């Protein structure tokens, strides 16, 4: 992806909007279509786009796998924590009505926090899945890059040589016509 300037520029332009749209879907989810799951997928897709265009090494620097793992656990903890909070306040598990003085406000607060937990975990798991498939942690070392570049150069030279050879050894179509 070293030479794809158009891709890089386009990705850079799009990224803030993707992430912002994810947050909109997240926090507007209780008034319109959306919610934690969809928002999490969109946010995760934004990070994955960055990783695809700029390399997983850069992505790992911005979004470290350790932090992602913690975020995945934190989301579930937030969800369950809201349930436990309503339990401790004397209502049934996940009965948000009790979280505020007004039951409607309580429901609102509860679903907002629960969806935040969902969004956090879905984002984190999307990114973790991508990292898992995109290779072992730290596999993209300098030597690996050097080897890869070397191999690419060699392949390019071979291709040029082959093309030259083919044109020499191939039949001369122009003369037969």
């Amino acid at each position, binding site marked *: 992806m070293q030479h794809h300037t158009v891709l890089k520029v386009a990705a850079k332009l799009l990224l803030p909007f993707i992430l912002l749209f994810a947050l909109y879907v997240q926090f507007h989810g209780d008034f319109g279509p959306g919610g934690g799951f969809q928002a999490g997928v969109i946010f995760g897709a934004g990070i994955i786009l960055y990783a695809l265009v700029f390399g997983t090494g850069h992505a790992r620097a911005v979004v470290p796998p350790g932090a992602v*793992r*913690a975020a*995945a*656990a*934190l989301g*579930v*903890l937030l969800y*369950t*924590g809201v*349930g*436990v909070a309503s*339990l401790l306040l*004397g*209502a*049934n*598990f*996940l*009965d*948000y*009505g009790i979280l505020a003085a007004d039951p409607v406000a309580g429901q609102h607060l509860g679903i907002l926090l629960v969806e935040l937990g969902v969004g956090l975990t879905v984002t984190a798991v999307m990114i973790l899945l991508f990292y898992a498939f995109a290779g072992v942690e730290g596999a993209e070392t300098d030597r690996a890059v050097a080897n890869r570049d070397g191999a690419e150069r060699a392949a390019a030279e071979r291709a040029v040589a082959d093309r030259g050879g083919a044109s020499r050894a191939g039949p001369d179509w122009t003369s037969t016509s």
Partner: protein
Amino acid sequence: MSTLQAQLPALQIVVPLLAAPLCSLLRRPALAWGLAAAVSGASFAVAAALAVAVSDGSEIAYLLGGWAAPWGIEYRIDALNALVLVIVTGASTVTLVHARLSVAREVRRERIGLFYTAWLLCLTGMLGMAITGDAFNVFVFLEISSLATYTLVALGPGREALLAAFRYLVLGSIGATFFLIGVGLLYMMTGTLNMADLAGRLGGVAHTRTVTAGIVFVILGLGLKAAVFPLHAWLPAAYACAPSSAASFLAGTATKVSVYVLARFLFDVFGVDLSFGRLDPGTFLVLLAIAGIVAGSAVAVFQDHVKRLLAWSSIAQIGYMVLGLGLGTAAGATASILHLFNHALMKVALFLAVGNLVYRTGSAALASLAGVGRNMPWTMGAFLMAAMSLVGVPLTAGFVSKWYLLRAALEEGLWPIAIVILISSLLAAIYLWRVIGVAFFERAGPDTVQAHAAEAPWTMVAPVVALAAANVWFGVETSFSTGFAALAGAALAGGGP
């Protein structure tokens, strides 16, 4: 205290669910193990409290999020699932005591935290399947427990664990999908997912082909998850390749929870009239169960790997449970539920004993067990006790459940089943004797590992010995197990959850 009592159904699920993500954050194996063991013990206490509360035949209903029953998700506990909750949490706690050293030896250090996370999620899923009164919620918890189980199997030593986990994943997903399709079809005709509500509304539309298809899908899906013969192909490799502790835990619980859900659907949701009258999947299940009992025992005789041998024996034992359900009577259901409990006692003991052997000799191959009976007397003594229970020697738990099953079959005039049980018990004696014979009566070569194997550490021996003792205890003093099973069996066959 009364509020705590009222919140027990939620705590049963919430405590392990909350602990699982915490466990994944713990870097040190000892901490992860400690958290898992403490949580499992607490879950057992909750399950025991619930069992005490429903032991008079009453039911507990818990509305999740405070939403009323047919719309919201309802947890419903009666004698049947209270017993399942006790089995699952009990098996988890006992195996976790054993797991600390065993897992440290068999799982890579940096993955131990994840191993216990998967364990807790698996526990959450199975408890959820047992406790919920909502058909779709069963599917959700089924997937939680299944995905965690695939992870547990895949963390086993050796590359074949990955293949076993993958095969289990493919078949398990098919099973879960079939179950979901079935629930979807039932929902299509009734417009409800609550089990009690479903049972009430199914009668009016029972003649439709959609409901017939739904019932078939549900039974097939659950049959696959419960490893009912001939849908058992995933089980032997999964149990043989998983880490010893995970194999013990799963052997004692995973298929049993599916058998429980099958019982719940056959008796309560579809109802006795539908399950054993018009459509009669019951007879079909009886035939499959008999085939499974004979085939499972017969294949076990030819296994050279003790874990694999025990896994095949499990397929036969699941046959006993399904056989009892298939009879469709209160006595049959009682026998099936009783065997659910008793089989957990013996299979967990046997698998844990094998875990001790693997800990000391590094292998569960039959050939590598020569002479270990002399060097590891407690482990192999407990193995012998549990094996006698599996065969059905009088004064052991296995005898009690076989006796109840026999009585239930004879009550229906099905005397050939008596012959099947006899043949299967003989085969069980043969395959278990192969292990015992090698362990006690063959001598190890002077330079082999097993010749110098010492008894396993006491934290690994104590759970095995305790379970072996429990096999005798519940073979003599049966008031708890048969009492609960009879209560649950009568409630099932009486109709209505």
